[in-house]
């Protein structure tokens, strides 16, 4: 009988994931972005979380997958699955080449190189007309209907999750852990740094290739302008906010960012709340207040709460004052919201909650697995991106 609540919760979760197209009818295209971003987040997690190298050019990894799939399926009329396979393979190869560079250039400097690589891909590689269709974009027909495609993406996500699980549990996963902690010590214990670093990159590239191919067939037209630098930052953001090395956290974090627009549009009241300053300001005050508290100074938490309450109480007075100006302030539309909320979440996670969403859901995860429910699960102290060699 003790298992019953767990089974109910699991069934509920499964129902939400599987029944999502029915819950928000007509939004299957938007929904399928969640598993796709989750695959991309898991890919970046292999680099940042496992291998300890930061990539700021991940949009190039994904873009190469997308254009490969479009080239194979759209231009040559091969089947969808072959397109995904070729995209994954090519993604792995290009990532391994970049990994060779990472062996020589470490830490922060490699981040710069990946950044320049991303721009190179967008400006140059993706603009070669014979391969990508240039500015007009490449066509990538969707193999099945919108709703069915959501399940296809889910299936790929499950596959990637399984591969990731196998990687973690294998000798390679432990080798990557050792290399991240201390490359020299690991090498002196006989861990082959070159081979395992390249493997890490190849796996990341493989996942990114799959993610890119899925993205291409979701959008049906792949266009170079969609793979800019902000996208790479968004990928880093969703992975860090999700919580490095936490599969659940990353899937949740990535889905959150993928569905931000949908959530703002579909959840009642959210869209209105964003344009209503009297509602948004107290929340903003709370957030700023909690950011100010670095070392859990409770007095300052209280200060933040007080400021929030004060703004709320005063809002009948202040709102008429700003009312005239309100017309001039553009509404925070769903498209604009993710650009503002996302980075705020990132800064919040970096300064306040190093473990990200993964840490938040950890107690529930333990409980679901049959363990006791303990909300005071050990917290991640250090910001986890510190694992990157620098």
């Amino acid at each position, binding site marked *: 009988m003790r298992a019953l609540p767990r089974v109910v919760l699991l069934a509920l979760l499964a129902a939400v994931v599987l029944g999502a197209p029915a819950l928000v009818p007509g939004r299957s295209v938007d929904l399928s972005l969640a598993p796709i971003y989750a695959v991309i987040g898991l890919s970046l997690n292999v680099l940042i979380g496992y291998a300890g190298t*930061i990539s*700021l050019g991940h949009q190039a990894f994904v873009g190469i997958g997308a254009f490969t799939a479009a080239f194979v399926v759209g231009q040559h009329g091969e089947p969808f699955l072959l397109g995904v396979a070729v995209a994954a393979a090519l993604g792995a190869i290009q990532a391994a080449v970049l990994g060779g*560079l990472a062996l*020589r*250039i470490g*830490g*922060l*400097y490699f*981040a*710069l*190189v990946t*950044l*320049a*690589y991303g*721009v*190179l891909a*967008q*400006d*140059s*590689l993706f*603009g*070669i*007309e*014979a391969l990508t269709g*240039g500015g007009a974009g490449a066509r990538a027909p969707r193999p099945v209907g919108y709703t069915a495609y959501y399940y296809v993406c889910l299936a790929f996500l499950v596959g990637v999750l399984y591969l990731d699980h196998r990687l973690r549990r294998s000798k390679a996963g432990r080798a990557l852990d050792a290399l991240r902690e201390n490359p020299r010590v690991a090498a002196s214990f006989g861990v082959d740094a070159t081979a395992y670093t390249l493997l890490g990159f190849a796996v990341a590239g493989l996942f990114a290739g799959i993610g890119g191919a899925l993205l291409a067939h979701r959008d049906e037209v792949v266009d170079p302008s969609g793979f*800019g*630098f*902000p996208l790479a*930052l*968004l990928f*880093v*953001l969703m992975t*860090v906010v999700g919580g490095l090395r936490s599969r659940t956290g990353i899937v949740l974090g990535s889905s959150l960012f993928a569905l931000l627009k949908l959530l703002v549009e579909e959840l009642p009241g959210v869209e209105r709340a964003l344009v209503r300053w009297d509602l948004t300001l107290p929340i903003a005050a709370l957030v700023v207040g909690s*950011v100010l508290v*670095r070392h859990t100074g409770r007095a300052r938490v209280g200060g933040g709460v007080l400021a929030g309450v004060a703004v709320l109480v005063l809002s009948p007075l202040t709102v008429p004052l700003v009312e005239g100006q309100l017309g001039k*302030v*553009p509404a*925070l539309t769903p498209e*604009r919201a*993710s*650009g*503002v909320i*996302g*980075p*705020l979440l*990132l*800064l919040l996670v*970096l*300064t306040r909650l190093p473990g990200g969403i993964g840490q938040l859901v950890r107690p529930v995860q333990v409980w679901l697995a049959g363990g006791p429910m303990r909300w005071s699960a050990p917290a991640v102290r*250090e*910001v986890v*991106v*510190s694992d*990157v060699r*620098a």
Partner: protein
Amino acid sequence: MAVVAILVVAGKEQELVIGVITGLGYSLVALGLVLVHKASGVFNFAQAEFGTVALFAMYLCRVNGVPYVPAALVALAVAVGFGLLVERFVVRPLYDAPRVTLLVATAGVALLSIGVAFWFNDAQGRTVSPAIEGNAPGSVLGILISWQRVLVVLVVVAVCLGLAAFFRTTAGLAVLAASQEPTATELVGIPVRRVSTVVWSLAALLGGAAGLLAGPFEPFGPGAMTAKFLIPAFTAAVIGGMGSMSGAVLGGMIVGVGQALGASGSLLPASVPGGGAVVTFLLLAGILAVRPEGLVRSA
């Protein structure tokens, strides 16, 4: 000199002259990057965004009829204010955090700034008019130079002289000391955190100036300076080994000329676009792989 001669013989005067001047703009951003990196070891991904913020402030002032010079001063003040905010709310809470965390955090700041700019504006390009319209009299190697480009050169020269003088003052020496030995600097009574404030406002000033100077050349939108200046400026700083001011200026010119040559289509087949980005990537990866300490001895 030899490079200049070769380029002139090859009929690339246009790329050379314009490239050098564009590159000096990169140098300005690169100087800010080097300053912050020297003082706190941070790779500041928000450096170019200081320029975008200044540009938007400038645009708003100009649209509301403020004359050029006051508008520029307001814009620079806004950029410095932004820099101080970043220092106070992002850099200082992460004072003891690993440098990579700060890299991600400053990237987050850049993204937030772009997001806010999109919120209040649309993506459509805006233009600001230059300080003085038209071309300067005379020419360099047969290439006409606009007044705005003359201004770029003058400002960079002034900034270099100013920085050289600054590092001879007590405040400048404190910055150098804090960058080399933070603990010992603290021990002799220099407030290291205030040094950090000084450095970030200086860096924001440089970034803002770069934005104002580059603004009139092309229409700009949210994140314009980050898109166009961040990577070239980092490449320039890396050419100087991330530590040398003169190296950063030289690096900027190298990147500027390299990009101009790459974009002119003399390096890549015509079917491959984006020569400028290719050159930048090759320069960056090449320098880091072959000579990570930079081309110039760090001062």
